[in-house]
């Protein structure tokens, strides 16, 4: 679904459009996520990464469109597919790559890995390997933000599969009751692992939020400007004390569930190549690029510059990661507790 249905928008500010600068920044951020993940895809295939990687390729507009409205003081929780959220929320690329390469310079010192990149200093409360776990964590952070009373906002990214975990309903309930500054962002990429969402999801996910009279919007998740607009309203509402909102972004997972998928499935199939091809046509980055060109916001050179800058950053990050020191094996025992403390 690619309609943008706005049910209710109390306290919403005037809908604005991203400025030229903002548009270019959205483009660059999406491209950074994409090129980073393409590199992870290749390095994973080449056996250079220790663990599994779950890629966000094709879904970049969601994280980038939402996080454009957040500052480091705001909170976000993420999923097993978390590189995009991490980078969009301002996480350090080098430290993320070093993490995935299991290095001591990694953002989690090599203890977390791809599925668990977190940067507390940026409000990134962490990618999470437990489907649905980010929901309550985001609500807790939103509760803290509300108690602080200084306009911080908490955002929870979660998948269509996670939307079937009962914790969704619990957190819709708590956040509504307490008027928390929380934005639910459901990334409906049509799959839970290899199971098509429609086989495991009754009704519409957005309706589950509407049952709580929560301001709810469905948006084309491959249109970064549409996401930016909807998220802007939701974030503003949260900041100004208007309580939680719900965004369902319709998008598509271009890569497999994780990069070893083909090996694991050994020939098993759950989708048609044609479907993937059709969604490639809706690529959010290519779409914004074409729009930037056609509206004259940017010329070929500007885009080429961005491409080059991004490529350089990714290259640097990989070099940084490769040059890092191995993780410290003593950390496991040293870090479980804050030492010298109860």
């Amino acid at each position, binding site marked *: 679904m690619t309609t943008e249905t706005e049910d209710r928008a109390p306290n919403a500010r005037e809908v604005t459009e991203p400025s030229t600068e903002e548009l270019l920044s959205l483009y660059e951020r999406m491209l950074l996520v994409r090129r980073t993940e393409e590199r992870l895809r290749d390095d994973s295939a080449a056996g250079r990464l220790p663990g599994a990687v779950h890629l966000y390729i094709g879904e970049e507009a969601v994280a980038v469109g939402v996080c454009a409205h957040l500052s480091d003081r705001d909170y976000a929780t993420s999923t097993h597919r978390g590189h995009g959220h991490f980078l969009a929320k301002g996480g350090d690329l080098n430290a993320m790559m070093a993490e995935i390469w299991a290095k001591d310079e990694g953002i989690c010192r090599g203890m977390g890995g791809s599925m668990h990149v977190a940067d507390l200093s940026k409000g990134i409360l962490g990618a999470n390997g437990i489907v649905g776990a980010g929901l309550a964590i985001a609500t807790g*952070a939103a*509760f803290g933000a509300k108690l602080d009373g200084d306009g911080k906002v908490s955002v929870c990214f979660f998948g269509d599969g996670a939307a079937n975990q009962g914790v969704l309903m619990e957190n819709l309930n708590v956040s509504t009751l307490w008027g928390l500054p929380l934005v639910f962002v459901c990334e409906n990429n049509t799959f839970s692992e290899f199971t098509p969402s429609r086989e495991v999801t009754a009704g519409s996910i957005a309706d589950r939020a509407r049952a709580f009279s929560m301001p709810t919007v469905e948006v084309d998740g491959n249109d970064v400007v549409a996401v930016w607009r909807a998220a802007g309203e939701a974030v503003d509402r949260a900041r100004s004390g208007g309580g939680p909102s719900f965004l369902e972004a319709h998008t598509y997972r271009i890569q497999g569930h994780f990069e070893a998928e083909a090996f694991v499935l050994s020939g098993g199939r759950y989708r048609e190549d044609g479907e993937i091809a059709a969604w490639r046509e809706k690529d959010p980055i290519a779409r914004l690029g074409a729009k930037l060109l056609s509206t004259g916001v940017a010329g070929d050179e500007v885009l080429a510059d961005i491409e080059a800058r991004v490529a350089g950053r990714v290259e640097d990050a990989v070099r940084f990661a490769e040059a890092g020191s191995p993780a410290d094996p003593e950390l496991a025992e040293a870090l*479980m507790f804050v030492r010298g403390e109860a």
Partner: protein
Amino acid sequence: MERRLIQAVGDALAEEMRRDPKVIVYGEDVELSITGDMRGLHETFGHDRVRNTPICEATLTGMAVGLASAGYRVVVHMMFSNFFYTGMDAIGNQMSKLRLMTGGQVELPITIIAGYGGGAANAAQHSDSAYPMLMNLGGINVLTPSTSADAKGLLKTAIRGRNPSFFLEPSGRGGDLGEIPDGDHLVPLGVAAIRRVGADATVVAIGRMVKPALSAAESLAEQGVSAEVIDPRTLVPFDDAAVLASVEKTGHLVVVDEARECCGAASQIAAVVAEKGFSSLKGPVRRVTTPNVAIPYAPNAEARVLPDAERITAAVLALVGHDRVPA
């Protein structure tokens, strides 16, 4: 000052909440406080700091992680330790792991309070002593006070601490009256208390089991057997040294634990002594625990499965029989 255990809990909460505005309490029915340990807090500290929640344990434990990450000291009341199962995801997958997983970025000053154990015909779903699974997670402190003073002092330490702690109070009894030192009474984690000094056998008794262990020691004394009773006070961290030192002196170990036997706290303590204190042992270690059963409702059947002074006495006598002939 003499206070019951649940009053000591309330006192500790009030003091810590007064001391630090970042301490937040929530849970199901904490405002009226069904278990009594939070009576009056809501009136004193208001809705922002003491708040009733919907019934949704999975979210209550997960929310604690988020609220702690946002800089608060979180106290969650979960009523009965059986409800840990309901809220187990965030306990097992988040709270106990995130500090390592984030490379030490996150600090989670979370204190979970719940009643545990049987003895009140509450039946299987309200009588578990569900701490062994917490002990197996790593990354979580487990507190089992047996006196009012320890309840207050341990809880204050936990709330002020920087790690997740589970504070387990014997369910629904309120506890006996006990003297509490004046002032800012803190009890460190990981330091056992010797409740009775003895020479012939070491009895390590956990939480609610301290009382029957002491009365067993009483009747053992009448039979000429001198039992040393150790209350570990916290199971994680655990005071290995205190137990090992006692066993070095007595040569015998009985561990009394209300949790079920298999992989329970008594197993852990027995294993530690069999590993590190073997040369002190003059005979087998004994676990006096609840067998591997769900707690039955009927009081006679419940009494049969819960450890009591009689079973403790018998276990000690069986051991000291190994190296002494009764006088």
